[in-house]
């Protein structure tokens, strides 16, 4: 059955903080991933989320989008609590975010264009076929894919193109909030830089708030407004990169002042100097 649109689905979120997480605890059995984690995302920003492998970045994203149950704590998205929420609340929120999973998570039996159409069909069945095809086509183009990619199957695409196709599907419903899980992982540096620019452009054009999980220091320097650091089962610091570089926490210090961190900073400074 097609899901019904929530009555206020066409109202954009006017509040300051589209995502507010308070005292979150998540656990797999005995293994606690987050304990008393709190995080606030500002509207219109690109928030980078960093942390060591296995520190729970993806789990945090899954908790916010409702794929991972929270053991304790409160998660508000667009001002509505989604912990143990009624299905109706979920629907109202779900049509307003887009998620790009790590591997793209495209439906392998559908073409790229049909992949983009899936959320449109699900949430807005009253859109005519022709308009829906049009929407799918321009979303694919907006994501920086060539025209002929629309009719291709995911297995025929390269890794970078899959990510772009996944992005096109994430943007299908014109979301206000975009979750990106390691969008540049596995891309070559040129492709990664292009993807960063695309993210920034889309964020500016469409007025998105972006929750971006990454390991890529260049991405942090290039496009993130603020960076949140996960360690010790909680967010240990949130701030702009200059603020974080001053931090005394050993993990943050090593992260930004290690060899790769210094290289990324230097290349950013060179780029700024040239511009």
């Amino acid at each position, binding site marked *: 059955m097609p899901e019904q*649109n929530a009555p206020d*689905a*066409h*109202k*954009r979120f006017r509040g300051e903080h589209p995502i507010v997480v308070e005292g979150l605890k998540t656990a797999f059995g005995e293994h606690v991933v987050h304990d008393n984690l709190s995080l606030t995302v500002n509207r219109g920003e690109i928030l980078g989320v960093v942390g060591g492998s296995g520190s729970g970045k993806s789990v945090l994203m899954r908790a916010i989008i409702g794929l991972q149950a929270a053991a304790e704590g409160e998660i508000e998205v667009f001002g509505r609590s989604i912990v143990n929420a009624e299905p109706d609340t979920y629907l109202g929120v779900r*049509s307003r975010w887009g998620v790009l999973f790590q591997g793209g998570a495209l439906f*392998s*039996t559908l*073409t790229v*264009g*049909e992949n983009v*159409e899936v959320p*449109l069909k699900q*949430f*807005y069945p*009253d*859109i*005519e076929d022709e*308009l829906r*095809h*049009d*929407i*799918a*086509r*321009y*979303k*694919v*183009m*907006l994501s920086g894919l060539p*025209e*002929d990619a*629309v*009719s291709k*199957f*995911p*297995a025929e695409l390269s890794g970078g193109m899959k990510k772009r196709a996944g992005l096109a599907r994430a*943007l299908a*419903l*014109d979301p206000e909030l975009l979750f990106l899980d390691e969008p540049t992982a596995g891309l070559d540096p040129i492709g990664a830089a292009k993807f960063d620019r695309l993210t920034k452009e889309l964020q*500016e*054009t*469409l*007025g998105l708030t972006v929750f971006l999980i990454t390991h890529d220091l260049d991405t942090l320097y290039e496009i993130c407004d603020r960076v949140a650091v996960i360690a010790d089962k909680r967010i240990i610091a949130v701030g702009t990169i200059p603020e974080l570089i001053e931090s005394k926490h050993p993990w943050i210090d090593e992260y930004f002042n290690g060899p790769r961190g210094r290289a990324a900073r230097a290349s950013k400074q060179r780029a700024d100097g040239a511009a």
Partner: protein
Amino acid sequence: MSGGAEFSIEQDEGGKARLVLSGPYLVSTVGAIDQDLHAIEGEFGTIDLSAVSEIDTVGAWVACRLAARHGAKITGESGRAKRLLAAVETARSDADLTPPRVPLWELIPELTGDLVSKGGQGVVNVIGFLGQVLIACGSLLIHPRRFRVKALVRQMELVGVSSLPIIGLMSFLIGIVIAQQGSVQLQQFGAEALTVNLVGRITLRELGVLMTAIMVAGRSGSAFAAQIGTMKLTEEVDAMRTIGISPVEALVIPRILAAIIMMPLLGFYSSVVAIIGGAVVGELMLGIPFWTFLIRIEEVVPTYDLWVGLIKALPFGLIIALAGCYHGMQVRGNSEEVGLRTTMAVVSAIFTVIVLDAFFAVFFTEIGWG
């Protein structure tokens, strides 16, 4: 003003009409008025967006399309609308969403030809695969230390030991059904004592092995295809090759050997349990005591019936494992393929087993083991 997207047509002083869009133009609202917008005809000088309260790329796309169709200029857009219009304007495309469709009169001959050539290719491939397995067997004989005993034992456990409960239950019930239904028919000739012959011979010769083969094809043949298929998708098989491990040696041979070893054992077990099921019916319904039933089996069933069942079990096991592994190795592309190949593995295994069983039935009768 209601909550939805609306439009109106106003006459300008210059003579040209003006299309005024108002309300929210969003993915959630344009669906309702898209048809009405399509029905608008005529030329417009301008499309006025100043009354549009909210807009997203879908709204911008609709405005863009209207402007192109009616030769109009867009005016009164907000800063956000301007950005969105520019973005969708550059993203225009006419590409087809699905690969081009082939007309039916071309499709049918094409599919038939495909089927024939693929069928032929399939036979060649299966023979080639069997050849690969034999070569790998040969190289294992030369280098016996490369043989994976652990994998073989693990597969024997999966194919054999863990299927004992389900095969036992199935065989017990089949034994009951044969004894009960057989006795009803034999009673008409006053020959219900022959129920023992019926149960003993049919289970040892035919049904024990055949039902076991069908169960093993469903349980283990499908598992082989799905496991190996998934490993192909996740490139584990390629990783093995690069490390220098032959996938046929590591994955296929343990499974095939396990199936060949376990099939006769399972078939014999199945026959025995079915005979016990028959003996229970004898005790409860026919007045033949349980132990008498079992002792009579020894007298009325010739030993070659047991051999017929056990000999057939070997090629059945080979066919089931070969079909499962072959189809697993053929998986490429996407997850749908794993499902397709698993189905094909089970169907082709059961079909081949039954065809071969018919051949064996004639063969063993001809050589005097009737």
